[in-house]
Each structure stands twice: as C-alpha cells, then as structure tokens.
C-alpha cells in the first residue's frame, strides 16, 4: 500500500511542488521578508537598528521575553505531564482511533469560543464558583489569575502534544514490549528503558508543537489572564493594533521567530537516517 501511494505521489510531485512553492513564496517567505524590512525601519522609513537596540536595552521588554519563555515552558511541561500518560493509555485501547478523535475534537472548535466557555466556567458567577457557594464555601477569584491562564492555555494545547506522542507510541513494535518483559523487565522498567526512549521523537515533536505557539499566545493572556500575564504575543498585538508602531511590533515578531528557530534546532531529531 505504501508503495502504490508512493508511486501515485511521484506522478503528482512536480505539479505539487510548483503550487506549494508559489504558496510558500506568497504566504511565508514574502511576509517574513516584509516583517524583517519593517523591523529595520524608523517611522520615516529609513534604515535603522534602533528598534532592536530599544528592545534589548528595555527592562520591561526583556522581562516580557522572559515571561513568554517561562509561561511557554510551564504550558509545555503541564501538557507533557498530562499528554504522555493519556497517549500511552490511548494506544492500549481497542478503538484507539475513535478515542483519539475525541481527544482531537476540541481543536475543531474555534479558540475564541473555547476561551469564552472558560470565562463562563471560571467567572465570578461561573459554574465553579456557584458550586463552591452551593456547598457553603466562599467564591474565589479564578479568572484573571496565572493559574487560570495556565489551565486554559494547557487545555488548548493539549491535543497538539497528545497527537505526536500517540503516533510515536503507536509506531513502537509491540513485540519490543514483549521482548522486554521476556528478558525480565516489569512494566515500569519496560516503560523507562524501552518505551520512553523510543517515543522521544514524538515527545520532541509535541514540545515543538506546544512550546512555539505558546510563546506568542495573546488572546488567552487577555481574556483569561486579564493582561496580568503579558507575553511577547500581547506586546505584538498592542503595537500593531493599539499604538500602531508597526516597526517595533515587527521587531518583536522577528525576535520571536528567531526564538522559535532556536527551539526547533534544540529539539531536532538528531538520529541519522538509520532507523528501519
């Protein structure tokens, strides 16, 4: 099956590559260049490095950068902690594709809708607080806290962590588990010595898929974090939409892209193409 698919693919390759190349050029390469050019200009469209200088000498922007990385890191860790056992459990189920679909389903719903749903849950008159009141406890400030921001961000990103880990775990030959047990390893030792190392490519892909977008979250920081959590994503939004300082917004954008590329390089699969 793989072979016929490959053959079929080869037939379309040139046509595909043409269309895809144009797409890349128009929607990836050109915008990135525009962003770069914009970031290297002052208000009068003259070349300058002042924007970068301003960024790296400003305490608040550096704090924001640190904040972005710190929160993205926390979101990544939280999703990983929940996603790995979930993905592992999913691979042991009979109808695993069905259950996986249920896990992925929330990603089909608009991010804004999900965010508002959480406002409904966590708000002062929300489900959580009214339940607390009902059982005789004091309502708590849930919305506009670091915790609520982390909860919602992790919830939104979770499927993107589960999916690659699930795929990596599914690719592991079940006979390797049998072999490990056969050689005297219990379930925990098998997980530690065989399953976890072999699922690393999926874990790395999951980290990329969660960490990078988390660096530039802005809707959740605003609606759930109540702008208490200010990340580079929030700053970009401010500069483009509120202060109209496109040059500085672009500068932050370029810096974020560089940060993402570094993340990609750090989590890259270093294995040589020797895997069969």
């Amino acid at each position, binding site marked *: 099956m793989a072979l016929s698919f490959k053959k079929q693919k080869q037939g379309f390759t040139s046509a595909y590559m043409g269309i895809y190349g144009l797409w890349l050029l128009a929607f990836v390469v050109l915008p990135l260049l525009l962003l770069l050019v914009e970031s290297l200009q002052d208000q009068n469209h003259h070349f300058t490095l002042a924007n970068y200088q301003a960024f790296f000498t400003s305490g608040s922007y550096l704090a924001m950068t640190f904040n972005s990385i710190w929160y993205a890191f926390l979101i990544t860790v939280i999703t990983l902690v929940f996603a790995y056992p979930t993905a592992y459990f999913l691979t042991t189920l009979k109808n695993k594709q069905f259950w996986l679909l249920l896990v992925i389903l929330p990603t089909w719903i608009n991010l804004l809708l999900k965010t508002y749903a959480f406002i409904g849950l966590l708000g002062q008159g929300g489900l959580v607080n009214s339940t607390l009141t009902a059982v005789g406890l004091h309502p708590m400030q849930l919305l506009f806290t670091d915790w609520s921001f982390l909860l919602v961000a992790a919830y939104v990103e979770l499927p993107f962590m589960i999916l690659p880990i699930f795929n990596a775990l599914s690719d592991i030959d079940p*006979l390797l588990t049998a072999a490990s047990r*056969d*050689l*005297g*390893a219990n379930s925990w030792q098998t997980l530690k*010595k065989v399953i976890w190392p072999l699922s690393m490519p999926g874990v790395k892909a999951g980290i990329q898929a969660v960490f990078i977008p988390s660096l530039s979250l802005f809707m959740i920081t605003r609606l759930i974090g109540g702008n208490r959590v200010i990340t580079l994503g929030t700053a970009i939004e401010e500069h483009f939409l509120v202060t109209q300082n496109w040059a500085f917004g672009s500068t932050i954008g370029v810096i974020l892209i560089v940060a993402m590329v570094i993340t990609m390089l750090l989590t890259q699969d270093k294995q040589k193409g*020797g895997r069969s």
Partner: protein
Amino acid sequence: MVEKMPILEFSKVALSFGDTEVLKEIDLVLESGKFYTLLGPSGSGKSTILKLISGQLQADAGKIFFEGQVINDVPAEKRRVNTVFQNYSLFPNMNVFDNVAFGPRLKKMSEKDIQDKVKEMLGLVKLSGFERREISELSGGQQQRVAIARALANDPEVLLLDEPLSALDYKLRKELQQELRNIQKRLGITFVFVTHDQEEALAMSDWIFVMHDGLIQQNGTPEDIYDEPINHFVADFIGETNIVPGIMKHDYLVHFVGKDFENVDAGMRPNERVEVVLRPEDLDLTDPANGKLVVTIQDQLFRGDYYEITAVDDDMNTWQVQATNPATVGARVGLTFDPEDIHIMRYNESEAAFDARLESYEDEEAEAALQAAKDDQSQSGGQG
C-alpha cells in the same frame, strides 16, 4: 525406566481467540536438556504454545507446569525462560552491548560481571568485537545472533525460538541451524524451536511435535515421524511422499493398486481400509519385467543431488521417485521396493492407539526373533 522430572508440562491446555480454537486440550511433556521442535503450517498453534510458555499469552483452560510448579499465573518477566523472536525484536535505541546486557542489568549484576557475560555470549554467537555496533548497522543474520545472545544472557532454563531463521537466506539458515544445535549441546539447556520447515525440524531436533489445527498430530524422534507417520497430514507434511488407498487383507499383507504386497505392519482388522505410504527415495527404477509396479515417466526435474521423477501407473496414480540416474520421459519402467518400505496408516487412529499397536506387534516380532534364535541355538546344540 527412570522417571525424570519434566522441565515443562502442559496438561489439557486450551486457548481460543473469539470463536477460533487455537489450541484444543494440548498435553505435552518436555524433558530438560533436549532440543524440541514444534512443527506445523501457519495457524497450527505452534507459536501459541511458545507464547503460553513465555507468558505472553494466558491459557483459557488447563495447567502449565515448570519444574513441577503451576506457572499459569506467573508473569512473563518472572519465568525462567527466554525467547528469540521471529523478527529479532532488538531494541533499536541500544547498541549490541546494551541489547545483550539488558537482562543482566535488570538482575543488578555488577558492571564487571555484565561485561564478562556480554563478552561470553557474543563469543558464543560468533560476534566478538561487535559490542559498539548499532543494530541498524547489522545484517539480518547478525541481528538474529544478537537476539540469541540477548536471550541466552539471562541464563534461561528453556530457550524458546519462534521461527528464528525463517527470514534468512538458505545458506545462512543452514549455518545457523548447525550453530544453534551446537550451542544447545554446549549449554545443555532445553530448546523449544518453532518452525514450518520440515527439513529444518528433521535436521535439528531430538524430538518433534507435529501440529495441525490446534492439535499435536504426532510426536516422536525425527526418524519415527519420517518413517512412521500416523496420518495423511503428517505423511504429507514431512517430506515428499506417495500416498495411495489400500486394504490391509490381514497382518503383513496389503492390497493396493490392484495387487497384494507383503509388508511389515500388523494389528489391524482383516480387510480394513488403510492408506499406504511409500517415500520417493525408497522407490527404485528397474525394467518393467522386474517391477512390482509398472509406470510411465511423465516428468523429470534435476535437483542437484538427485532426479525428481514423476510417473503415472495404469490406474492413473501419480508416483514421485527420487533417483540418482536420469530416466527418459515417456518410457515405461518398473518400480521396486522392499516390504519394509511400505508404511500403513489407519484412518482416524489416535496417537496412543498407534503407539500401542506398534508396540504390540513389534514385541511379537521380537519374541519370534528370540524364539527363532533359541531354536537355532538348540538345533546347532543338538548337532554339536
């Protein structure tokens, strides 16, 4: 006969997957230090037996004993057996050393002992010096050697081998067959080898279990099974064979293809319908006047060390003959064979009944021979 405690025993072990009965009440006894083979076509249940021994599968019914103790509920990692898997199942994230050291490390052996163990095992499978190689750098044969070393590094009482050679080419397979046999003899542990290749089974085993449809059809030494197959399936599965219907007129006289032949089988009802087995290598070509059967040569294949000749008799029965000299296609020739070459199979005879019958008339024969010898002696004594 001294009863040695069997190392492994199955008592009425059964297993089904849904509606499919994979094993139907299997009984088997394995003694320590022997090379056993489970032989059968795919789907016969032979690998299932292996997985029940290793603990990969749980029996629905029956008991499995290891050195006299029931082990049905003992998890795989606590059983003193190890498996060599069909597709090797080496850990791709570890090099050769780490793969072989996997079991010893779990046993918390000292680093020095682990080093020694790995070295010894790699020496045993002729891969000394391969410690630092990655699995992906090895050929199929080398990977299988690592898999054998990895399983043996755990000092198992029983080594289970699940069609370990089936993915290798002919020459390499022959080489590894020899080596496995040598390793088994050297270590003196029990091997349970699963294969669908009858030639491999005959060459390597002390004892063979022929499996079909979730049942053991016959078990015995390679010679027993080859020379005295119990039924059509076994006769057909173990090597090339000619099987024709016949009638056992009385002890030591069988009728087939329209003629009566003397033979050496007995213990059946008079005029019982039977199947007659004649191995191709037991048939000799001669001129038609001297032949017990007269056939026409239809086809001939050169097999290197012999000619595989297909011939047809006048009743349109096909006969396979192995001959050292070529024949002429279309020629009429005679076929001869000795009474001992004829093997008789009864329909639906159980293995126990088959063994009992063989024993009864073999005893008679032995007694008769003894009597004859005595007579002979007394005669000569009288003369002297």
